[in-house]
């Protein structure tokens, strides 16, 4: 019983922070700076809604023409569960968003 509860908690924690557990490590490894990517999306899509929409569209259906970050010559085809993607993008936005950080 206790094991299941712990497992659930861990699962929930990892689920809540899917960005830190999933996206960040690989990106650090591959030297694809998520902050740079974020600012590029901001530069072309402006608002939170539009940035998230564009990222989601790209991550689910990669299209070289719509890529805003090309480092290794070719785009990276992510395989992310669409259900956890929204959560990841939410954390992603909160982490790097500009609103509230300008002095």
């Amino acid at each position: 019983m206790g094991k299941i509860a712990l497992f659930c908690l861990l699962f929930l924690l990892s689920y809540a922070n899917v960005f830190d557990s999933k996206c960040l490590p690989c990106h650090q490894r591959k030297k694809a700076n998520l902050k740079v990517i974020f600012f590029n999306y901001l530069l072309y899509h402006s608002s939170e809604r539009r940035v998230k929409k564009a990222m989601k569209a790209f991550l689910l259906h990669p299209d070289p023409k719509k890529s805003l970050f090309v480092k290794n010559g070719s785009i990276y085809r992510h395989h992310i569960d669409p259900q956890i993607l929204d959560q990841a993008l939410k954390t992603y936005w909160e982490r790097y968003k500009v609103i509230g950080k300008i002095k």
Partner: protein
Amino acid sequence: MATSSLSEKKSLYNFLGLYIFLTLIILVLASLMYYRFQKELMLSSHLPTLQSHAKEVIHRIRQMHESLLEDNYYPRYSNFRSAIYDADYVKIFSLLRGKRIDFHNVLYKQGRFIYFIKEPERYYLGTKYLIIEILDDEKWIAATFKNILLFGSLFLLFMAFLGYYLAKLFLRPMKNSFTLLNDFIKDTTHELNTPVSTILTNIETIDKSALDPKLAKKLGRIEIAARTISTIYKDLTYLLLHEQLPSHIETIDMNELLAQRLEYFNTLAKSKRLRIRFSKAPCFLKADRQKIARLVDNLLSNAIKYNKIGGEIWVKTFQGGFFIEDTGIGIPKSKQEEIFERYKRLQSNEGGFGIGLNIVYLIAQEFALRIKIDSKPKFYTRITILWEK
């Protein structure tokens, strides 16, 4: 004359009213357009400065963006304020004093502030809209109002002159036709009087007792017709000229005058087989004899005209007034008011009735006489004329 100058005045007022109304509408519209134009002019005069302000801010936020917001100090300037908004109109950062922003406008004024909205070609920091706000010194408003006042009053002055000229132009044909008609009627009526008087004096000199009764009857009809023309002539002259006619005030013995006028209408009364009763008491009135004769004539003429065959006319004098009562169709209570209305309306020309009562009213007014109507339909009408003793 009275009628013509009255309707002349009325149409003049109508014209002036319409004219002033239109002038004011034009003035208001023109002022509004001028104000708008001045506002646009003022706004566009600020455009180059606003553009350069926008350029400075964009340059700065580009640097911030490129530093990935390591450098997060938003630019501040003493001569203007700015704000940045994203594509969904969410505020990214703002230094503005005004609260609301109209994103549909590029350059506009709200409150005391002028706003300029610039869209950078790239959304640095997510900025789709950069808003520049400067304070409007509003000197142009004072200048604009000064000009509106100046040119507005010049325009009004011009329109006043034009209106005066137009009114004259507008009234001239009317005046002309009135004077023409007036002169014509004056001339004709004068020409008319001589033959009618000739007929009447000649009939009066004929000894009717010596005539064959049939012929006497015919002569009586001619006399009645001639007298009717004469009465109409006198009424017409009065209506046309009463303003120019000076009144010769004298003390009139009303018994003598009424007797004379009754004598005048005798033939007419006889033709309807009317009995005339005349109750006399001392009765004097200070007024113009000719005009009072007109008044009496009209009352008597109505008393005869609306009487029934074989009816009666009762004339009674007393101190400070007299009345003439007939046994005619009478005037219903509701119509009595109406008749007074008709007096006032002046233009009523419903046959002899309207004109006759109109003349009675006008003369009574001139000499401050009071008219009282007592009547019972189908039985009698008594018109009493009263004055201060």
